[in-house]
């Protein structure tokens, strides 16, 4: 949609009429101005929304959940039986995490999550999804060739390991509880959280 046939290199005359910005930039700006003028949105609220997802809501939240589950067997049980409530114990809740299910990786079963239809993702624990998660290659191939997808991420599962792909087609949002790595021995919860990666909680990485 953004019409930029000359890529990023603009001849000076492109700027002369003030039209060098990609069309989408000017369109979104115009939409925002119109909606502010009509009283439909408030600029301070828009800033607050974006800042929340840039600073407060992201994969460090999920990492804390995983670290707690690795440290506290009773918490892990609650997380696996009622993930929404267990995640809320740590203060994470809300949009795109209203109905959570956490699936546990074990030596026998590896889990990975996808949304083939759009971009469903557990925002309160992982934040907004990376571009690759929303992209056609990941969405198209994760259900048909998940082992091939994992190989692109550098993950090779033993042949006997069952692979379970969770396609978030409806109202449930999934997070993977990765296996606790050998390097976790003797670490406290904060140190454990530092070992947890976003991709580990999507299921496209091993820790």
């Amino acid at each position, binding site marked *: 949609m953004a019409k930029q046939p000359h890529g990023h290199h603009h001849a000076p005359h492109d700027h002369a009429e003030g039209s060098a910005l990609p069309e989408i930039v000017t369109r979104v700006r115009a939409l925002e101005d119109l909606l502010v003028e009509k009283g439909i949105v408030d600029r301070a609220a828009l800033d607050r*929304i974006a800042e929340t997802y840039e600073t407060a809501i992201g994969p460090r939240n999920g990492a804390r959940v995983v670290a707690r589950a690795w440290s506290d067997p009773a918490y892990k049980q609650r997380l696996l039986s009622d993930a929404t409530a267990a995640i809320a114990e740590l203060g994470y809740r*809300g949009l795109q995490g209203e109905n959570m299910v956490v699936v546990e990786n074990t030596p026998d079963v590896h889990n990975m999550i996808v949304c083939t239809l759009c971009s469903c993702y557990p925002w309160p624990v992982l934040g907004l999804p990376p571009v690759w998660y929303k992209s056609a290659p990941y969405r198209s191939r994760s259900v048909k060739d998940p082992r091939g997808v994992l190989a692109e991420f550098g993950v090779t599962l033993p042949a006997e390991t069952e692979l379970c792909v969770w396609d978030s087609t*409806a109202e449930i949002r999934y997070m993977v509880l990765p296996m606790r790595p050998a390097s976790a021995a003797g670490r406290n919860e904060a140190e454990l959280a530092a070992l947890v990666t976003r991709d580990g909680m999507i299921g496209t990485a091993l820790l």
Partner: protein
Amino acid sequence: MNTVHDMGGMDGFGPIQREADEPVFHADWERRMFALSFGIAVSVQTDDDHFRREVESIPPVTYLKSSYYELWYRACQAILARHGVLDAGKPLGLVPALTAAQVGPMIEGGASTRMPAEGIAARFTVGDAVVARNMNPTGHTRLPRYARGKRGVIRANRGVFSFADSKARGDGPAPQHLYTVAFTAAVLWGHEGRTGQTKICLDLWDAYLDPA
């Protein structure tokens, strides 16, 4: 709606392109568009089902050529047009704009589509064999093509939720049980799916399923 958003199992899109240290937003307009979609949803009182319907209604060639937040821009434009918000004059019947102070509670409060289960019977129990219906509605649905007509097993009953297909049509919530159904890769993909033990689990509403 059988169009390109329903990508599960398609070939030809190439390798997965990852970016190291990816920012939450790649440009200020993405950040504005993300936030605008919240403000629009609150003021116009629309929901995810309507939003997804609008995204899916984008012509397939445009859909594939557009970046993620370009799709959001088009979907929001369509929602605003449908509600007459883009017309001259101040539109009526809208909820007042979300304020900065309301943002936190709105995000934390969420928008669960879970509904009371009283009086709504579950047609299936865990372990039941089911077949996903071969249905091809021209409206919004959350039953991907790759599972239609395929046999699976009920793995979990997730409770009662409003039904996306009905809500997106404007026909009300039509609450019903939502199940996680496990399909083997071999059932879904035939010979190409016979690489190790692989299951694909989908969340499917009662109305998508028949007893096997």
